[in-house]
């Protein structure tokens, strides 16, 4: 969701307060029929299918619809899989924090300190410019940046700050975190900047007039009022990071295995049942994360 979309929605809402037809007219339900049919066919049924397949019996060469808990036991009995579950959760939490730490001040600048709406939009569009290149190129571009003979090491050595190249930069968890932060921070900036842009400037002036300094105003007025944006941004980042596999594959040198990487490997070797188990576990984690985040704020009140 871009900020421009969200703003358009907000301006349209008051105009449509008078419905053309009565709200409870049965014919109005036909309007959502295409979406319901599409989502049922391509979302609801596949998810139920994944749950079903996770209980199928998998042998080396074939899979049959005989219900068993074997794949589930394989997953929870394996150190590799459990480790990757914890790695996924750890990287998700770290990236959530880094995107917030990098994204919030940016959003604060764009949404609150830039009062010119045109400039605000221009700056937000600039945040999206990296998305004009393909996802894979954006990820792979970090290799010549972070590598042993990459740009960062060359510059630091050239400046005489370090003598030996830092090898920990690439093919480690750090490089995965750096890559993910860069890719997903914009999803944090957008919703927060949008919420901050809606704060009435006179609220901040009122708080200043009552004697509060900048940090107190930030803590007690600005942050609470931008919290819905933080939650929406966190949901975007969480859902995308939890399902990630490409960044870790490209930047960790196979050292960081997320649940997403396991799904890719299992599907690649046609182990559908185990891939489904991981898929179900990921879906449940995402569901819990989104439900938990939504408890922080009442988003209905903000729309």
């Amino acid at each position, binding site marked *: 969701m871009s900020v421009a979309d969200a703003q358009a929605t907000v301006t349209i809402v008051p105009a449509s307060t008078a419905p053309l037809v009565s709200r409870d007219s049965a014919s109005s339900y036909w309007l959502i029929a295409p979406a319901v049919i599409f989502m049922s066919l391509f979302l609801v049924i596949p998810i139920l299918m994944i749950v079903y397949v996770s209980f199928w019996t998998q042998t080396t060469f074939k899979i049959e619809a005989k219900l068993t808990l074997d794949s589930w036991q394989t997953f929870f009995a394996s150190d590799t899989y459990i480790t990757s579950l914890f790695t996924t959760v750890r990287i998700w939490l770290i990236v959530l924090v880094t995107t917030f730490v990098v994204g919030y001040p940016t959003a604060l600048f764009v949404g609150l300190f830039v009062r010119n709406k045109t400039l605000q939009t221009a700056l937000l569009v600039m945040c999206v410019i990296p998305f004009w290149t393909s996802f894979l190129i954006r990820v792979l571009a970090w290799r010549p940046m972070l590598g042993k003979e990459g740009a960062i090491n060359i510059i630091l050595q050239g400046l005489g700050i370090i003598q030996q190249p830092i090898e920990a930069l690439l093919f480690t968890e750090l490089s995965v975190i750096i890559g993910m932060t860069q890719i997903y921070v914009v999803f944090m900036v957008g919703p927060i900047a949008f919420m901050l842009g809606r704060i009435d400037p006179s609220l901040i002036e009122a708080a200043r*007039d*009552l004697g*509060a300094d900048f940090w107190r105003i930030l803590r007690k007025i600005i942050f609470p009022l931008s919290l819905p944006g933080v939650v929406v941004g966190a949901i975007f980042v969480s859902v995308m990071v939890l399902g990630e596999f490409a960044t870790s594959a490209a930047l960790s040198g196979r050292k960081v295995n997320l649940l997403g990487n396991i799904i890719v490997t299992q599907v690649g070797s046609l182990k559908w049942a185990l891939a489904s188990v991981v898929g179900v576990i990921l879906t449940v984690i995402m569901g819990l994360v989104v439900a938990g985040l939504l408890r922080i704020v009442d988003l209905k009140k903000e729309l």
Partner: protein
Amino acid sequence: MTVPLHRDALGVARCFGNLHNSQRLRSPYIGALDALAGKMAVEAAIFSLDGVVKRYGAHTALDSITFSIKNNEYVSLLGPSGSGKTVLLRTIAGFEAPDAGTVHVGNHDKTRVPAHLRAIGFVFQNFALFPHLSVFDNVAFGLRYGIMPIAEDAVRERTLKMLDLVGLTGLGERGVTQISGGQKQRVALARTLVTEPKLVLLDEPLGALDANLRTRMRIELRRIREQLGVTFLHVTGSETEALAMGDRVIVLDQGRIAQIAKSDDVYNRPASANVARFLNRYNVFDGVLEGDRFTSPYGQFGFGHRVPDRRSAYAIRYDRLAARASDGPQNGGATLEAGYVASEYLGSAVVHFFEAKGGKVIEVEHHLSNGPPAKYVAGARYVLAWKPDDAIVFG
């Protein structure tokens, strides 16, 4: 009078006072000086602006504004939209920096002091309540997070006392989105007053309320202010509000002060033709002033007194005019001929609208205590007459 002058006078008076005590001199002058020192301590300006200028590009929003406000005074600031009222208030509060001039609170130069350290209260036109906080937390904000945060039980005590004072007893736990417009206004006021500022700036505080509530809040504002003894500077675009509320009225015209006076002085003796226009109680004619005759496109008129002004104009109050049939007896005085358009009933009075030459609308107010209003025929010509002594001429 500026602050340093007050201070010096006070110092001199005190010196004389000491002299009088030690040397047992009994001079009538010294007694008078003592009295003067006492009076000045009470009436010393708690706030003054000196030559404040604010420009936006080529536009001068405030042009050398100089005035001072005494302790425990209610001053209203009247001006049409675009006259610089809000800019002036924001400059005083510290949200805008003046290009020239100084802002003093008491004896302290606050011109370069940031807004949150000025201890000047500001009540916003749209209330600017913090939407995520309850009524209580809104009011307590300045005590908790202000320059000098105080203990939580003291916060509680002062906040509850303030809620009682503004008539919000028992509403502390409500959200600020769950209360009425009048209650929001009270929260905004309480939130500012609880921090005990010396000066409170009110930016069209009643503008967002409906008429009925506005009248009630006027009385409330005065009561609360008198109870606390704090100084109010109340900005308004409504002439009736300015006259009703202020001990003194400052009239702002295109970034300059047009008049500072008591309400009845502003009303009866406007200092310029524009002030007369803002009051919305005067028919103002443009024209040429020669000696003791004023020539307007509607005829030559005599006048009672003259006020120096850059441009010539002639003003006669709505209720000083009378309309009569054009063929009736003429008995001197100033007259002009106009066609009747319509009337408007105001309850205690009726305003008749007439149209003079060139489409100029002239209002004639008839107080119903002087008997029922005359019946006029739409489109018919009438003679509007008044005593020249009632008229003011500018120029």
